């Protein structure tokens, strides 16, 4: 009996989600939806569980580079910085820079008027057919700048109706704007929720500005939390896709985020993205100055794993800057500065854009087919072994980057269940001068030292030696192949060697998460 013969709509969606690399285990069980009365619309009814994804929601997600791990290989989003004001203060943010919830701390973007922003969007879209999503996320809070934010959406929607709109907010003003968000056909909203308990919240938020008054301490955190959850409920009731971001702050909200995860899941959030706190004294933030550390890669993964049983986790978020342009991980914003936009000739060609999307669909189906084939092979093996590998890729789901050029590595966990994408490790900061070549290599090793191997298209003999010395095998025999396929063949081979007693897997050291702002390459 094959799945194709018995496909219910639910099963179809299940497969589609699998194809996207989204985890689907939890949503099939659809937890948190027991009671009909009482919590009413808030706990259920919105169909936000991914396993029940209605067709129209699937349509919204599938080409969204931020939500679909699969799509982010092919599609791009951009952010425009039209919203400088904010209505709260976070301890990991320094308002001289962009909103730390959506970007990395210490990043400044060029502020644009709605008119400039709309022109920039059209200029980028006409040059980069992959650009399918426009987000407004800062540099402050979009809903603390409602006029600028909605004006930008209006201008873009008029000229480029095929571009999806999304916005990110701290949630304080959200309930007031759900109607406008709906009217503008915004289909994705991200809320940053770091706590649901004011006792935790007062350690993260020194104050909020609400109804003409500055509130502090627990009172501030309570107002913020109530508004966030109310906003979330209102959005899911309107069937607007809602993602939750949480910043993991060790010792403050790390364990508590499991509670947050349950709370947002039960209110219909579609994805939960747990990001590491990025904190360094030079950011001038409260946490930077108090020496509050961020989590290690293993701590982050452990928490994400704990929450995964609850709902979809998003592991490919790179905390990109608010005006980044390009495929995630590749920042082309320096090509689109205010000055340069003024001289770009606009030619918004919807035909080219559609042709690109068609081509991508074919490519994606091919990739999924390859993966399925390998999965069948490996499923026969019986082992508890799990290993991590790092992959140098430029996108397209292939191993197609030179080790020395990689600005980041994708990390996959391999087991008999196949390969699971678990995150990115950026190494860009270190490759940009200021550091000697040897130090740069050291830093790369620290960032991926929990991996047994690194897959590359090519690698020089020097770094190869250093990596092997650090216990990381360099693998270039899968150059330009699909990542999943290569991963599965590698794992099969690895397992064979382990079983034959040729390799003794040891516990690897924890990796470091890079602290520091992304500096765009010129």
């Amino acid at each position, binding site marked *: 009996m094959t799945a194709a013969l018995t496909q219910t709509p639910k099963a179809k969606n299940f497969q589609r989600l699998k194809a996207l690399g989204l985890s689907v285990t939890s949503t099939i069980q659809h937890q948190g939806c027991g009671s009909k009365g009482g919590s009413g619309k808030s706990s259920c009814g919105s169909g936000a569980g991914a396993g029940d994804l209605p067709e129209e929601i699937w349509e919204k997600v599938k080409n969204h580079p931020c939500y679909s791990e699969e799509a982010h290989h092919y599609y791009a989003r951009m952010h425009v910085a039209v919203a*400088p*004001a904010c*209505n709260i203060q976070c301890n990991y943010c320094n308002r*001289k820079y962009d909103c730390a919830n959506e970007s990395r701390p210490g990043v400044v973007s060029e*502020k644009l008027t709605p008119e400039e922003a709309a022109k920039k969007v059209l200029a980028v879209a006409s040059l980069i057919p992959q650009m399918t999503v426009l987000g407004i996320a800062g*540099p402050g809070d979009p809903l603390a700048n409602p006029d600028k934010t909605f004006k930008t959406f209006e201008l873009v929607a008029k000229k480029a109706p095929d571009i999806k709109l999304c916005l990110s907010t701290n949630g304080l003003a959200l309930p007031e704007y759900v109607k406008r968000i709906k009217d503008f056909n915004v289909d994705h909203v991200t809320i940053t929720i770091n706590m649901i308990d004011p006792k935790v919240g007062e350690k993260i938020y020194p104050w909020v500005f609400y109804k003409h*008054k*500055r509130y502090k301490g627990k009172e501030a955190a309570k107002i913020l939390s109530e508004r966030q959850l109310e906003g979330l409920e209102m959005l899911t009731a309107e069937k607007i896709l809602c993602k939750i971001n949480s910043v993991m702050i060790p010792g403050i909200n790390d364990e508590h985020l499991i509670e947050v995860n349950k709370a947002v899941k039960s209110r219909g959030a579609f994805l939960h993205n747990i990001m590491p706190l990025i904190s360094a004294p030079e950011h001038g933030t409260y946490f930077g100055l108090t020496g509050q550390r961020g989590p290690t890669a293993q701590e982050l993964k452990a928490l994400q794993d704990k929450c995964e049983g609850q709902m979809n986790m998003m592991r490919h978020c790179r905390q990109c800057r608010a005006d980044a342009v390009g495929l995630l991980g590749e920042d082309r914003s320096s090509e689109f500065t205010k000055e340069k936009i003024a001289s770009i000739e606009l030619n918004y060609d919807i035909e080219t854009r559609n042709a690109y999307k068609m081509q991508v669909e074919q490519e994606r189906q091919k990739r999924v087919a390859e993966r399925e084939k390998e999965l069948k092979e490996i499923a026969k093996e019986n082992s508890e072994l799990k290993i991590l590998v790092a992959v140098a890729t430029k996108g397209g789901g292939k191993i197609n980057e030179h080790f020395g050029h990689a600005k980041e590595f994708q990390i996959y966990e391999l087991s008999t269940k196949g390969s699971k994408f678990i995150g990115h490790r950026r190494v860009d900061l270190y490759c940009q001068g200021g550091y000697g070549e040897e130090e740069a290599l050291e830093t790369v090793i620290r960032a991926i030292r929990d991996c047994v191997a690194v897959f590359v298209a090519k690698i020089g003999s020097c770094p190869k030696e250093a990596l092997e010395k650090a216990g990381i095998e360099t693998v270039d025999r899968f150059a330009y192949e699909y990542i999943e396929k290569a991963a599965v063949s590698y794992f099969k081979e690895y397992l064979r060697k382990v079983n034959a007693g040729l390799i003794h897997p040891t516990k690897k050291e924890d990796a470091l998460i890079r602290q520091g702002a992304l500096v765009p390459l010129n």
Partner: protein
Amino acid sequence: MAYKIVASQCTGCSACEPECPNGAIYEKEGIFAIDPEKCTECIGFFDEPQCVSVCPVDNTCVIDKSRPRYKAKK
């Protein structure tokens, strides 16, 4: 008679501008300033000066000591 914005501290975030009940705050070359003739220290509108409450940088919106404090008109 009024509050002023310490220019060297202002991030230019614009948060204060729409909050002022008197429309006293305006933008000047990327940062913001208060028109002392219009500022009423929020007296008659709110319990706390709105620009101070919303500003992300402490001690940026401050009393302009070179002027007498505002007194509500009788």
